[in-house]
């Protein structure tokens, strides 16, 4: 791994973010709107629901964590799409950069984009609704790590599709997370799902992450087994994502799509 090249490619995206104030505003705007919306819904539920009445802001915390996942995946996709939109794809792939360096650069830069959007929303939730995700305590780091890994994995799968099918796959990029959201049990416990879907849901890390979040906030119990399971599943999917990315790249070289993907 040549970190100078990773830094070089990351710089490309930092310069892009830095060059445009509306771009930064756009990164902050959507997560903040989400927090306002879910903040009021959460407030209503805490006042009206017996399930949630002991813990203020469980739904809002779930919304923040889900937004973190959403932003990390979208950030990854967006940076890859930027190369296609700017017709820079060929220049990038003929430069002496390894695929793993491209993945590393996008992964590292995606966290910056994600934090630009999420941190203001997290901070906003404290004075506005009296909700702080920091109440989760140290396990929050592990939950965020799992979410980030899974978000990047979804980004890798979408970028693999972009390499394989070209820019027409772009719409899938936006839809990918909404497809998994119902199975993720973000706002409700897994028992709500039909039994057969519960089995499917359990092979995703999301269920374990959001169940654990509720476990900590509502029952004040930390299950390290569940936290570890979420990380292991996320790492497994990440490895699958990287493998599929490499396979797509090899396939694109056979089909010759790398040379004119922006056109």
């Amino acid at each position: 791994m040549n970190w100078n090249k990773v830094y070089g490619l990351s710089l490309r995206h930092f310069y892009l973010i830095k060059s445009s104030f509306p771009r930064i505003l756009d990164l902050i705007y959507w997560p903040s709107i989400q927090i306002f919306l879910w903040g009021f819904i959460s407030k209503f539920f805490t006042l009206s629901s017996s399930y949630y009445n002991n813990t203020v802001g469980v739904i809002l915390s779930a919304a923040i964590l889900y937004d973190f996942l959403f932003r990390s995946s979208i950030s990854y996709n967006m940076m890859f799409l930027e190369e296609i939109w700017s017709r820079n794809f060929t220049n990038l792939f003929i430069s002496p950069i390894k695929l793993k360096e491209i993945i590393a650069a996008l992964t590292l830069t995606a966290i910056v984009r994600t934090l630009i959007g999420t941190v203001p929303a997290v901070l906003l939730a404290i004075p506005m609704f009296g909700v702080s995700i920091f109440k989760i305590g140290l396990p929050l780091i592990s939950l965020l790590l799992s979410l980030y890994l899974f978000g990047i994995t979804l980004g890798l799968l979408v970028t693999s599709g972009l390499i394989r099918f070209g820019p027409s796959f772009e719409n899938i990029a936006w839809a990918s997370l909404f497809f998994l959201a119902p199975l993720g049990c973000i706002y409700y416990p897994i028992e709500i799902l039909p039994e057969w879907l519960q089995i499917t849901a359990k092979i995703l890390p999301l269920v374990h992450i959001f169940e654990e979040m509720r476990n900590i906030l509502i029952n004040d119990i930390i299950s390290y087994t569940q936290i570890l399971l979420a990380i292991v599943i996320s790492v497994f999917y990440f490895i699958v994502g990287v493998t599929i990315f490499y396979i797509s790249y090899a396939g694109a070289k056979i089909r010759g799509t790398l040379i004119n993907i922006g056109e």
Partner: protein
Amino acid sequence: MKIEVKNLEKKFKDFTAVDNINFFIKDGQTLGLLGPNGCGKTTTIGMLLGLIKPSKGEILIDGINFDELNREKILSKFNFASPYVELPKKLTVKQNLEIYGRLYGVKNLSQRIYEISDDLNLGLFINKKTGELSSGQKNRVSLAKSLINKPEILFLDEPTASLDPDIGDFVRKYIEEYKSKNKISILLASHNMKEVERLCDEVIMMKEGKIVDRGTCNSLIEKHGRNNLEDTFLKIARNKNELE
């Protein structure tokens, strides 16, 4: 650095884009790659740059198969410029050169950016966003990017397409001067026959994926009984029997 292409073929399903071609680029040579649109030039360049996997045949770099060499090491000695491939538009010229300098592992990068900007007169717009430049300026920036790593082999795809005669002449003159001062081999794909006559030591003519003729510009003009390379190109492109 020398490139040898042996029995190279590329099939996309049933369509043969490149059909068993053989050629070499000698050390320090400028080789022209000519042919009508869709004849396989871009696919050939794509294979040489490692972007397209050949269906058959091999590409030898200094006698060693491309696939057996360290991809990154080889690509750090190559570069490519084409008006059809752009640099990120929202980044300044300097930022783009800095990024590609880092990707190519250029040492003393600031100094190299200064040198190349000075050579190609980029100074006036080096801090402007690439998307705000004129075609001529963009073209020079693209050339600067392609030379940032002082490549040993440079691939140029229609480097002066859509440029006015003055800027076109500036670019051609610059390539000539650069080549005289640096040890570099060039593969030039172009539809501008005057440019090919001026820059190329030798040309290969492609048609329907095959190489149909090769030689120096003068030898081809003479062989086909024409007055210039443009007429020679037209004769070859329009003659159905030339493939036989």
